[in-house]
């Protein structure tokens, strides 16, 4: 296409030049408004931080609103009105702010009437400030209504993005309204609404896909290309630890593989078929119905200002306790999290400090709930944000630890319990161990992993349970892929892997947690690759350092706003696992062997995984082993699928 044809006539060129110049002048006016708006925003920020008066900014913002109206630029007008409201809120004039916001929002709505896709980001900004204005006036019903509207609008768009990292970031600028909405519902004692909103900010993407769907390849060419790239990457960098820029072409291979992984996920059929389908809605009744009489749930949701909502749920009741975490309480929690992320062996002097920090975090079990918990046998814990790294099972309880009395397991949210529980499959066990490791991996040899899986195999075989054992060199990526493709891997009800694992906080993993690794004999296997295996396992046991960690921050964010599951747990969940027993921190291989062999002996006796883990821990502690949490408490069980 070559149009308009050049060289048409001289007068036309002159006309066009005039039009272009007029156009440029109009653009300059618009740019000037935007520039002035930015200047005023910066000025406001500066003054707020220095606590300087702001009133004189108001007439300047009013001028910008008028200028934008004259030029018929509704977007600039809306942004200026939002700034005006911000200043009115800063100066404690919520009623004025609300009046201006209501008018400006109506003007904005009228201006964009023809749009089928209104710019929700701007409308969302209006609602956010309106909620804050109502909050300042302590009108909680209005806060709840405004937040409810904003949340509903956000949820409409949210599931139209399937790429996991993008989906996770989606709530970043919207999380505050969810939090306001949850706080307002609490004030109104509308606990079900409170939990329903909290559920929307807890690992929703995990609920989007049915396990059956994950076992189908949506696009075999793409799947093959993904597999080829995994091979190319591992050929170049078997340990997966090289700086991507240090080996020629590695960065672009990694990038291409990430893109194909995203494409595979975009192409994955969703639970309800429709592209825009939402995950199942939360139902308190269904959650209660799913609980056994001896089960209870502790549900955590943290607000920004050190307030934690803790809910207790069993078949009969729902109770909510707000916990205002003191400065000391926050410090002890920080100490625990530092301890959890402590790499390698913790010194003997550090272990008691770590234990003290856990003890000092006992406020996480509100006194009001303790009598109710005492009559239960199983406890499901749904942490939030950084609490995902907290070993609740090691909290002091009666004269010991919580897990010594209650079988503890962790759930990402409540909704995951709503699906009907599957009947246990006929047990068929795969036990595998990495090592002796190829020198190229630069790993310490683990003396006990082979013995660990042999001990576990013996327990199952004694009970006549079909058990396969793969140790050392035969355990390769190719073997896993072949077994995945042939369906053999999906035939195992339980898979145990004893090997080295890697923290989601190590090096680049902080930004690419799905690329955290476990190690086979001669190569690393990372989360992206694991997620494409086809499993149908009730339980995956990762007897490997840090293997149960999930990312709580990263990619430039202090906290992941949607509380999404990233890391090896997520990878196995995507592959089709329903629960993962992993490690929260580095673990000594002889301790791991002791606890894991005991765990499998109880499993062979048909105990449920959470009960088997409880019993194995009790046995271990009663055998005279060290009671330092660092030694015995890394193992925890997470339910990741229904």
């Amino acid at each position, binding site marked *: 296409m070559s*149009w308009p044809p*050049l060289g048409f006539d001289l007068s036309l*060129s002159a006309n066009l030049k005039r039009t272009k110049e007029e156009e440029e002048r109009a653009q300059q006016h618009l740019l000037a408004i935007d520039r002035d708006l930015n200047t005023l925003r910066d000025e406001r920020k500066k003054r707020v931080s220095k606590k300087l008066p702001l009133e004189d900014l108001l007439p300047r913002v009013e001028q910008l609103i008028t200028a934008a109206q004259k030029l018929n630029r509704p977007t600039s007008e809306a942004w200026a009105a939002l700034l005006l409201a911000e200043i009115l809120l800063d100066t404690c004039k919520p009623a004025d702010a609300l009046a201006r916001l209501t008018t400006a929002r109506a003007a904005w709505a009228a201006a964009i009437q023809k749009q089928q896709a209104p710019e929700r980001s701007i409308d969302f900004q209006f609602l956010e400030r309106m909620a804050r204005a109502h909050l300042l006036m302590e009108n909680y019903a209005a806060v709840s209504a405004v937040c409810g509207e904003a949340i509903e609008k956000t949820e409409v768009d949210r599931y139209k993005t399937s790429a996991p990292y993008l989906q996770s970031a989606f709530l970043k600028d919207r999380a505050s309204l969810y939090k306001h909405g949850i706080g307002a519902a609490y004030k109104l004692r509308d606990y079900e609404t409170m939990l329903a909103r909290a559920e929307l900010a807890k690992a929703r993407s995990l609920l989007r896909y049915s396990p059956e769907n994950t076992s189908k390849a949506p696009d075999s060419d*793409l799947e093959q290309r993904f597999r080829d790239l995994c091979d190319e990457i591992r050929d170049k960098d078997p340990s997966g630890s090289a700086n991507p820029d240090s080996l020629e072409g590695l960065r672009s291979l990694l990038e291409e593989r990430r893109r194909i992984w995203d494409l595979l996920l975009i192409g994955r059929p969703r639970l309800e078929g429709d592209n825009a389908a939402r995950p199942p809605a939360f139902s308190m009744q269904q959650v209660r119905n799913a609980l056994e009489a001896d089960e209870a749930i502790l549900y955590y949701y943290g607000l920004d200002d050190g307030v934690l909502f803790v809910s207790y749920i069993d078949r009969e009741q729902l109770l909510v306790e707000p916990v205002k975490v003191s400065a000391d309480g926050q410090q002890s929690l920080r100490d625990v999290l530092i301890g959890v992320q402590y790499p390698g062996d913790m010194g003997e002097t550090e272990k008691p400090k770590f234990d003290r920090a856990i003890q000092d975090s006992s406020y996480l079990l509100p006194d009001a709930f303790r009598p109710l918990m005492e009559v239960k046998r199983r406890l499901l814990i749904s942490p939030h944000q950084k609490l995902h790294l907290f070993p609740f099972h090691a909290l002091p309880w009666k004269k010991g630890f919580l897990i010594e009395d209650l079988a503890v397991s962790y759930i990402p949210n409540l909704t995951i319990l709503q699906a009907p529980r599957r009947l246990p499959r006929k047990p068929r066990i795969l036990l595998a161990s990495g090592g002796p490791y190829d020198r190229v991996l630069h790993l310490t040899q683990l003396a006990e992993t082979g013995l660990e899986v042999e001990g576990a195999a013996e327990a199952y075989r004694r009970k006549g349970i079909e058990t396969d054992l793969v140790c050392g060199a035969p355990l390769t990526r190719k073997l896993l892929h072949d077994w995945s493709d042939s369906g053999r891997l999906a035939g195992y009800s339980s898979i145990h892997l004893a090997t080295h694992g890697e923290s989601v906080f190590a090096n680049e993993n902080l930004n690419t947690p799905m690329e955290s690794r476990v190690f086979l004999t001669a190569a690393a296997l990372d989360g992206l690759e694991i997620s494409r295996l086809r499993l149908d396992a009730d339980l995956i046991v990762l007897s490997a350092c840090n293997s149960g960690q999930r990312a709580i921050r990263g990619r430039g964010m202090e906290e992941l706003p949607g509380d999404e599951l990233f890391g090896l747990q997520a990878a196995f969940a995507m592959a089709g696992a329903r629960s993962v027993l992993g490690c929260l921190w580095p673990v000594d291989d002889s301790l791991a062997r002791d606890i894991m062999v005991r765990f499998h002996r109880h499993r062979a006796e048909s105990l449920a995984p959470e009960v088997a883990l409880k019993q194995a821990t009790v046995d271990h502690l009663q055998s005279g082993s060290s009671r330092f949490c660092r030694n015995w408490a890394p193992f925890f069980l997470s339910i990741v699928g229904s």
Partner: protein
Amino acid sequence: MSENVWQRFRQRLMEGNDQDQYLQDWAILRQVTLLPLEEARVLLKQKVATENMSDAAYEHFRKAMILVSAAYFHRAGLVGISDLGEWQKRYSAYLAGTDPEAKQYETFLSLRLEIDKVREAPQQAAPFSPDELRLGQACSELFSKLAVPLNTGPGLASQALIDELESLITQYESLLEEADPANRARRQALDAIAEAQYAAGRISLILRDYDQARRWFQESAESFGRLGDQFGLQLCRRQLSSIHILSTGDADAELRAALETLTREQVPVGSLDRAQAIVSQISQTVKAGDWFAVKRLIEEAVRELERQGYPNDEEQSPDEALKSWIESVPGDLRGNDFLYRLSQVVQLYAGIWGARASLSEAGADERLAGIRSLVHQLDLESLQADDDLQRRFASASARPLAATQAVAAGI
């Protein structure tokens, strides 16, 4: 920015332009006709040899010869003379007269008579009929009214402009209704209709009237499709896809398109499709607020643009970077295609700097403003280039063999 860069821009923009090509052809004819006839024959044979001149260029060269004949027919007073004796008398008088190009013209006429022996004439279309000329003229007159709305951007977009475009489309359609289906000038009207429909869609988009925009782009796509204009059709499809994404909020669809380009398609050498896809991915990640990915993609987009020869030297201002961008545009992209490619590079960098501004990177706002102003400058310079060319063409067309013609042709 040095004038040399803009001069080079104008030169590249005009390369391959019809009028520029005439100027180049006339320059060859001037060079040839300055020689004695025998030497002129040798040089002409060499200049029009198939290895030196494509079929299309040769066809154009022959048209340039017709225009030379016409120009000197006027100078020699030969227009409208049907009597051979009278014609011969006037021609001899002209040759003996004071016109400095008379001798060249004599050589030219000899060469023109022999040209079919030097190189065979390409298959030529029949000359335009009076009906075709009339329709062409009517279309050209309408185009004068169409050009301004076609070129309107965000600052001046209005519903009134769309109404004006609609009215012009109706007028073009009336011309078509009256014309014979075999009239070759119909294409001019069909082209204008497709462009006007596209412009109406674009203005509707600026006005955020997505329904109206969708309707216009669909009509434009049909028009381009009937014309067999794949480029126009592709542009319409892109716009329709963007509107679908806007109206459904289906972010996956947009991301999928970008990822497929980046992972599956064999991107041709010299294409900006890959850079375009990365910038589209940047836009998605900015919308989602995944700043980590935004930073990584920005680096990748710059690397890709640099790989294609469009470096982003941050030490330079955008208009200084333009110098290397101009040279990197493949030689086969000429005229508006050249301008389109250059604008595409500028838009991609604008996308990159827009993302950097969203990351609050120091200086990003200023750089973005610089790029916006560069877009404006490109528009103005292209109009200027067009003006210059027309002046040179107007001056040269009266005396295509004169010495001043070499200056006009930029030689």
